[in-house]
């Protein structure tokens, strides 16, 4: 099986504060990985570094996507190659129409792949289809991007974007936080619909509950900028029962 994402000894800082301190992770094509870990351990930092946020400075290590160095690429180039980040805190962009952004995003990816741009009719049809899968009111298309959306609605909107973009690697940063049970099921449905031997999914979550709906192949624990333990889905259950202390202790011991 081919490796899609390969992270080696990644070190990254923000404002000269080291956050990631030698993180290594391999994600194979078709796999689902869950990343758990205490607040402030660096989960979102990892997600943002993979997506190309320019505030983080990579000081050492490498990130390969399909064997290609990702760190030299602009965020939009990464997106066009099929990397998708579902934000922990999606930003509100008043005045930028949600449908407009979705269509521009789809077309950016299509153009990169050498396909024709999607026309308005085809786009609307596709968007409606995905929205009904996610139980989303089509009215959200005509609003500003995340403008005035509730917490859960923002998360659903992230999944809608993912569903339309059909990324090869989706990193979902706490997409399950703040969701009611129906929304959680809808989001899980959206993610599971995407599961494919050619796609990989990285779920950042605090709750083992999500993993009942999206069953991961691997679970990792991130602590102080490093992966300190990896296992299968039973690790999530163990963490739920015992908290993080024992993993962290086991490492420092």
């Amino acid at each position, binding site marked *: 099986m081919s490796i899609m994402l390969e992270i080696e000894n990644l070190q990254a800082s923000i404002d000269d504060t080291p956050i990631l301190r030698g993180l290594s992770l391999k994600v194979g094509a078709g796999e689902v990985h869950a990343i758990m870990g205490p607040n402030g351990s660096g989960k979102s930092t990892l997600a943002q570094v993979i*997506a*190309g*946020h*320019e*505030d983080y400075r990579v000081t050492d290590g490498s990130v390969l996507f399909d064997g290609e160095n990702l760190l030299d690429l*602009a*965020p*939009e180039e*990464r*997106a*066009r190659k099929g990397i998708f*980040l579902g*934000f922990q805190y*999606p*930003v509100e*962009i*008043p*005045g*930028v129409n949600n449908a*407009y*952004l979705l269509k*521009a*995003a789809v077309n*950016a*990816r299509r153009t*990169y792949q050498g396909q024709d741009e999607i026309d308005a009719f085809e786009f609307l049809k596709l968007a409606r289809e995905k929205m009904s899968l996610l139980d989303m009111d089509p009215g959200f298309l005509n609003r*500003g*991007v995340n403008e005035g959306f509730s917490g859960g609605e923002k998360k659903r909107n992230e999944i809608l*974007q993912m569903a339309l*973009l059909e990324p090869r690697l989706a990193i979902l940063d706490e997409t399950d936080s703040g969701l009611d049970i129906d929304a959680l099921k809808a989001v899980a449905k959206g993610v599971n619909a995407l599961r494919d031997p050619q796609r990989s999914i990285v779920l950042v979550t605090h709750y083992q509950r999500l993993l009942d709906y999206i069953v991961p192949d691997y679970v990792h624990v991130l602590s102080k900028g490093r992966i300190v333990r990896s296992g299968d889905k039973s690790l999530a259950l163990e963490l739920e029962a015992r908290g993080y202390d024992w993993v962290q202790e086991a490492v420092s011991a």
Partner: protein
Amino acid sequence: MSAAVLNQDLLEAAVGRLAADGLTDLRERALVRFGETGFPSVREENWRYTNLAAAVELSNAYLSDAPGAISATNVDISQLNDDIDAHWIVISSGVADPDALAALQDDGIVITPLSESNDSDQVCIDDPLSSFNAALLHDGLRVRVAENARIEKPIGFLLQDDAAATAGLSQTRIVVDLGRNASASFIELHRSGGDSAHFANSVVQMELDAGASANFVRIQERSTKHMQIGRLQARLQENTTFNFTTIDVGGKLIRNDVAVTIEGAHAVANVCGVYLADGNQHIDNHILLDHRVGPAVSMQDYRGIVGGRARCIFNGKALVREGADGTDAEQSNRNLLLSDTAEIDTKPELEIFADDVKCAHGTTVGQLDKKELFYLRSRGLSHEQARILLTRAFAGHILKKLPIENAKKYIDQLIERKLDQLTGDTDQ
């Protein structure tokens, strides 16, 4: 630097050359009044950012042989009619085409040349630019909207007054009355006819009687050789609504004075603006909202996008006088700076002498939000695309409130073109 002074003798001679008509008496009074003040200088607080020396110099040169009479210019407005559906009246140097006035026969509205309206005492000469304007008027327009009349189609004034190939000076005056419960929409469009230097000085007066409502959109797309001072003053009686939006994309030196006086309870005044400037443009927006009676509501909402070496000024004031209890006055001015060499001066002012007053103001000067940029780029949009989208959205905040639907498409395209120019500039 010594301030340029307008030559009063030249002015007097130029006024003297104008034909005797219904405005003669007004011109004489205005001439005297102007002689007492002259042009404002940068030493005055209200004018400290805008130096009129170049305008004064051009005026002196022009006045030395100003014509005694001019005739209405022929401007082909067929394209304009397609772009914005309105009753268009072309005004050059204050003079409108009489045929256009005759053709305008909406029930409830009468527009006549100011010189024939027999009420030149209504023409305001209270400030230096207004008295300079009145002294040199070839003519003006008197607009009356009858009680209870609802004028559906906007009345458009096209100010295009530089047909001559030489540097010019022009005065435009429009005096509008809306009767009780009347409603109407107005568009004031400023354009350049040629490529010569010009100083345009316009004054629009609006009187809204009780229950009346007016929408007013001003679009300024003059050439960058033009200087323009525009004054709009409105007096609002009880239960009136006044929605004003000004769009500035052109001009070399632009100064807008908007003065709204609330004289009746339950009046609502929305005063909004967008200014986009680059190169060496200078755009100065001054607003005075004078709350004399309460309760009443006013909103000032201006946004600017400024690049190159342009300089823009926002000075909005809400004055809540004694007795104007229950006033709600809000001010907002936000700016995007697209270059290090551009400059913004933003100065919201509040003076409150009444009780139970709600006032809020906020101003910002900044760059595009980095989080928003990253979000868009993470979806595959190029940096350039993301920047244009966010810049457009920034101006869109005002445009989506545009009070005259007919003008929307035209303005969107105008802004789009200017934004292309502005966002292109920063790539260099």
